[in-house]
């Protein structure tokens, strides 16, 4: 074991190797690594941002859906109101129509009753006149006794 020329050669080789590593290896690999970690950091940030945006959009969508539902409920309520109003209105119309019909019918009945009573009266007067003329044995002159007959008829 001794120290010899190998030492010098080895130092030379070592120096050369360090120089080469410094020049052609270290910067390239470290750059690649740093570049990649930057890329990863960017990717993570973008993912986080995307997630945040998604949450926001979801919130917005929820709000829109809620509003739409509220509006729909409102519309349904209005429609129900309107429907019941219409029903009420129809009921009113129908009942007044019915009352009108009833009134008209009653009027008609009254009219008919009056008319029937009139004709009945006339018939009864006729019958009475005929009966009286039979009893008297002669013809009662309608003209002569018109006022008497009328008075009589009115009494019936």
């Amino acid at each position: 074991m001794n120290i010899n020329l190998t030492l010098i050669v080895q130092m030379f080789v070592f120096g050369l190797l360090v120089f080469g590593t410094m020049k052609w290896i270290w910067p390239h690999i470290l750059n690649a690594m740093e570049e990649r970690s930057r890329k990863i950091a960017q990717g993570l940030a973008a993912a986080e941002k995307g997630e945040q945006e998604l949450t926001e959009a979801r919130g917005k969508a929820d709000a829109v859906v809620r509003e739409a539902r509220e509006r729909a409920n409102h519309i349904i309520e209005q429609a129900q109101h309107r429907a019941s109003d219409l029903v009420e209105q129809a009921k009113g119309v129908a009942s007044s129509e019915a009352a009108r019909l009833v009134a008209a019918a009653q009027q008609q009945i009254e009219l008919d009753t009056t008319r029937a009573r009139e004709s009945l009266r006339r018939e009864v007067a006729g019958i009475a006149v005929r009966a009286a003329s039979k009893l008297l044995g002669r013809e009662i002159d309608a003209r002569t006794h018109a006022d008497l007959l009328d008075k009589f008829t009115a009494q019936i």
Partner: protein
Amino acid sequence: MAAENAPGATEYILHHQTFLSNKAPHGIVDFSVINYDTVFFSVALAVTFFGLFWWVARKATTGVPGKAQNFVEMIVGFVDTQVRDSFHGSSRLIAPLALTIFCWVFLFNFMDLVPVDLLPWAARGAGFEHLKVVPSTDLNATFALSLTVFILIIFYSLKMKGFIGFLSELTLQPFRAKNVLVQALLVPVNFILESVTFLARPVSLALRLYGNLYAGEMIFLLLAALTLSRGLGGLATVGGWLGLIAQFILGLIWAGFHILIITIQAFIFMVLTIVYLSMAHEHH
């Protein structure tokens, strides 16, 4: 113990401890010698590391990474975290330096997990008598790393603090005194203490790595020596079988344990480099 049941174990281990060099070295320091195997394997491993990382870096995508890019990014991210944790200055050099050290030292150490006799055996087939395949069991390789780091420590200390600042850091601590005369007396003491601390850094860096890997390789060699020179004939005896089984089980356990060691050693070398350079950048 291995030597008892396996004659020739000493030669076997010494043979494995010999480098493939241009000539036998004389003395501790001999700059006319070069270890071809260390240079060959460390360059091959450097090419492996650089080739893989460069291939990935060239077509690195910022989108979904492939398997190779994932693997490379895992290591780069790991090193980057370590650098960011310990180093608070700004430097374009220190992170790539840490990455290079971690990967290269790990690959050095990983060669220890290749079966100890496999590559030397193949080399002998190709005509090379000796071959040491683990560069971090060569002091030259570990000192090359630690001395380069040491030069960088000195360079950055001077650059960030200036010569005066660097010098005052070496002489004005840890002992301080209000009295100028007493302080003047304390300067040499401080200088000796701080110099030892300062100079111990490259030495401890290099020797820690070398020692761990040398010991690890030595264990593998001793385990390999269990069945040394028995050959297939050794299987005729019960002792031979026991040796083989013991070698297999112990080798397996040690290899599993060694995976941790080689990783930890590479990690320690990297972290200490970062810490030392960070200290060189800091003002006191």
